[in-house]
């Protein structure tokens, strides 16, 4: 039976297949000191590690029985732990100590040690990604560590940076925005406007039926006077206000000049 955990521990007891009796025995042993222990079925946990509310806050991960974890699974469990948190795994007699030690190390654990009765214990390293490394060729100089946190003058607030996981800090994958408004309008689409009089609508319908690409649009259209909201994408008056009734329809000087 494992020893009881200290009262301020936040622990998870991991199981794959076990009887309720054995689990409650283990829970009882662990919680006699007043610790908080949460029961987690291993496969369900592995599916949703990133969303777990205790992510990054667990002090002890304990295996209820030999779990047969591979390197990749161990790596997924690592971020659950707080830096410095410990994992305790019982080993099956068939498992090689060295193989598991190697897997734990490659997964990012440190301090892998064998405890008595076939238990292996390891820790999540204290440092997080990006912490300072010792200076090499230059002397360290006066240890002026000037630091300001966002919670500078905020006593009584938690350190909010601890709420973020590595996944949170990684930049999102974003599709590049299309280049802004070419003269042809929205991202290459060449629409016919309503009440189309220049024949683009018929061409588009014919092209859609024939499966061919729409041919180049003509410049005349029945809707130029209405304003940009109704002009077709090849209208020479795009960017100008709607015409007032009776206003001469002229293209301002310079508009006909090529942009390039």
């Amino acid at each position, binding site marked *: 039976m494992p020893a009881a955990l200290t009262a301020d521990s936040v622990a998870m007891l991991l199981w794959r297949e076990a009887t309720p009796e054995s689990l409650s025995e283990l829970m009882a042993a662990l919680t006699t000191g007043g610790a908080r222990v949460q029961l987690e079925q291993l496969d369900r946990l592995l599916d949703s590690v990133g969303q777990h*509310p205790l992510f990054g806050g667990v002090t002890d991960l304990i295996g209820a029985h030999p779990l047969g974890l591979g390197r990749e699974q161990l790596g997924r469990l690592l971020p659950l732990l707080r830096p410095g948190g410990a994992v305790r795994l019982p080993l099956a007699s068939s498992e090689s100590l060295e193989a598991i030690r190697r897997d734990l190390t490659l997964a990012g654990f440190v301090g892998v040690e064998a405890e008595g009765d076939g238990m292996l214990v390891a820790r999540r390293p204290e440092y997080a990604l990006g912490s300072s490394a010792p200076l090499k060729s230059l002397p360290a100089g006066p240890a002026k560590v000037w*630091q300001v946190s*966002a*919670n500078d003058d905020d006593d009584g607030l938690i350190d909010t940076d601890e*709420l973020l996981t590595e996944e949170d800090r990684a930049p999102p994958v974003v599709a590049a925005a299309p280049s802004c408004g070419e003269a042809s309008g929205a991202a290459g689409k060449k629409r016919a406007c309503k009440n189309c009089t220049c024949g683009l609508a018929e061409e588009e319908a014919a092209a859609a039926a024939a499966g061919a690409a729409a041919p180049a649009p003509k410049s005349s259209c029945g809707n130029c006077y209405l304003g940009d909201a*109704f002009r077709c994408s090849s209208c020479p008056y795009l960017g100008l206000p709607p015409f007032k009734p009776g206003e001469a329809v002229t293209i301002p000087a310079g508009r006909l000049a090529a942009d390039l």
Partner: protein
Amino acid sequence: FQQPDTPHSTMVPPCNNGEESGTGGGGTSSQLHHPEPARQPPQLTIAYGSETGVAQDAALTLYNFARSHGLNCRFGSLDEVGIVALETAADCLPSNDLRQQLLIAACSTTGQGDPPANMRKFWRLAMSRRLTQGCLHGNGSSQSANNPHGNGDSATARLRFCLIGFGDSSYLQYNFVAKKLHRRLCLLGANSACPLALANDQDELGPDQAFLPFAETVSALLTDTFSVRCACVGSCLDAPLPPLYRVEAIAAEKSTDSTHTTAANQVVVVVGADGPRLPPPETGYQLARIVANKRVTAEDHFQDTRLITLSPAPTSAESPSPTLWSPFQPGDVLQVLPSNSQSAVSSLLSTLSHLDPETRLRVSQSDPNFPPPPDLPPAGPTLRWLLTNYFDISCVPRRSFFETLRRIAMCIGDEVATTTEEDSSRLDMEIERLGEFVRDVDELAAYCNRPRRTVAETLRDFPVSASRIRLSRLFDLLRPIQPRSFSIASLGQSGCSSLDLLVAVVRYKSKLMSEPRLGLCSNYLASAGPGSVVTVRLQRGTLRVPPVDVPLVLVGPGTGIAPFRGLVQQRHGVVNGQGDEAPAAGSAQTLVFFGCRHPEKDFYFQSDWLEWSRLWPDKFQLATAFSRPTSDSGQQTKCYVQDRIRELGADVAKLLLLGGGAVIVAGSSGAMPREVLSAVQAALTVHGGFDEAEAAGMLAEWQRTGRYQMETWS
């Protein structure tokens, strides 16, 4: 839910649950969905934390959905209404309200991963140590061992919430506020009713790409939770909404507004007897007078940049005039509330020719969540005053604008207006097109966002719809002008009578639009001659100034140099403009990198830098980079600040590694901050003996701890 008694209202509540939902007491309808008898529906709060109005607009869209279904709900900023919801759920308040709290919130991230000003108090509460894990859980304070996934149970949790963050992934701290808040609430035991949604300015279709699905999810959740029975689902585009305010014409004397033009062709902006827009004193806003407005770039240079000096102005003839600014630190900003240009206002007034510009209006409360705006003139604003000083008509309209304009065109919820026959077919066309813009984010982006089309230009394209805008719907359609921030470019830590701003006047041609795009605030300040009165507010900046004995590397190309002018003076002993021959004892070195086009065209504060290099040669060094030099500037090739940083990499590494120095980068967002970070990393690698991964890791850690700061603006 109280429907206001407007005289011309023909509204009928669309759903038959106006009395049942949200008014407390077991609603009969809730028994259809919850097996527990007489279960009270939750208390609904829709809130926002918004710096520029984007998150607020999103929250308002969700509020309109709730309103259109007759749901009783609190609406406001997270500071206004979120705190109560959180405290009630956490039992911090001695209230008898045992209902579950349902909080729908939209919050953006600003500065260096900081919460916007109107949710700072809420943030302090949510992140407070006195809220213990599980306190929102509802089963006592410990999490149940039978609930392995830890997300508070949806039925018993004291708080359920849906959260969407608004951010920009070109920043390192992308949506940090929403991410942290979401995790914190879950850890406290609240139930997250839907996954965290993250809206990103850099998405192909902008923030709407994430917001629209989120709005759908929230609508479905509200429909289910409050057993809304309604024929329409989703956003209910055709459901009538009462106006946000009651707006009536007052039959009083009309006002006279005036603008004077001085001989120097600089406009002295005086908005008549009504005065400029001035929010109440507790918001921190005050009036300021322009003392000087000087162009600091060469006349033949394409960029017009001004050095603008301002002094506090008296608020009224009776109150004693404050002649000094409150003390401020380097890195602090001045927020300015600009007004629209006269030409833009006249053009819009002619589009709204059916409304009288000079009649005074009374704006009073109609919705319990919207007290009347406190910054309107007491005598009652005129339409001209509102379009000049209050409503933003030069911003790019958002989707909600088109939704509202369509409702106005269709007279939904109002008495139907008559149209002529020729207008009628045009109206149908406009309504259809407005609907297309509402439904198709891509169409909207092509029409509005990419060309940067303004509200005024949009209304010009929809004249018949615009002719149906009533006074009562003005506040539904248009949004108040948001303030713009400028880094203060002068010293003021012990109170001073004037401060300086360095303002680059924004003017560019967008593809497609024939008129150039003008930055609202920069053009407003540029045209405000000496004597003009403007509405401003001092704000603490997001920069944390290191102690004076920490060496500094300051990178400020272009107008980014503005906050460093005050910073350098303060560090090396200049107090309020009086120079000191000997630098302040104990001050460490400062290395400033400044970049601009040409030494004779836009070398901001050149005389100051030369003077200080002369005064403090051991402490202060300026490295310049000119990107469009001519052959007689002593520099042959195009050079940017990042190139100079690499060139002086040994000095940079020495200051940072040996001296424990810090870096501050200020200026335009985009490529510059990335290039500078890369150059500093190169300096650490080449001259500091680290490999690239170590240097990158160090810089990431420095950004987290505030040793590498960025103050960038777009």
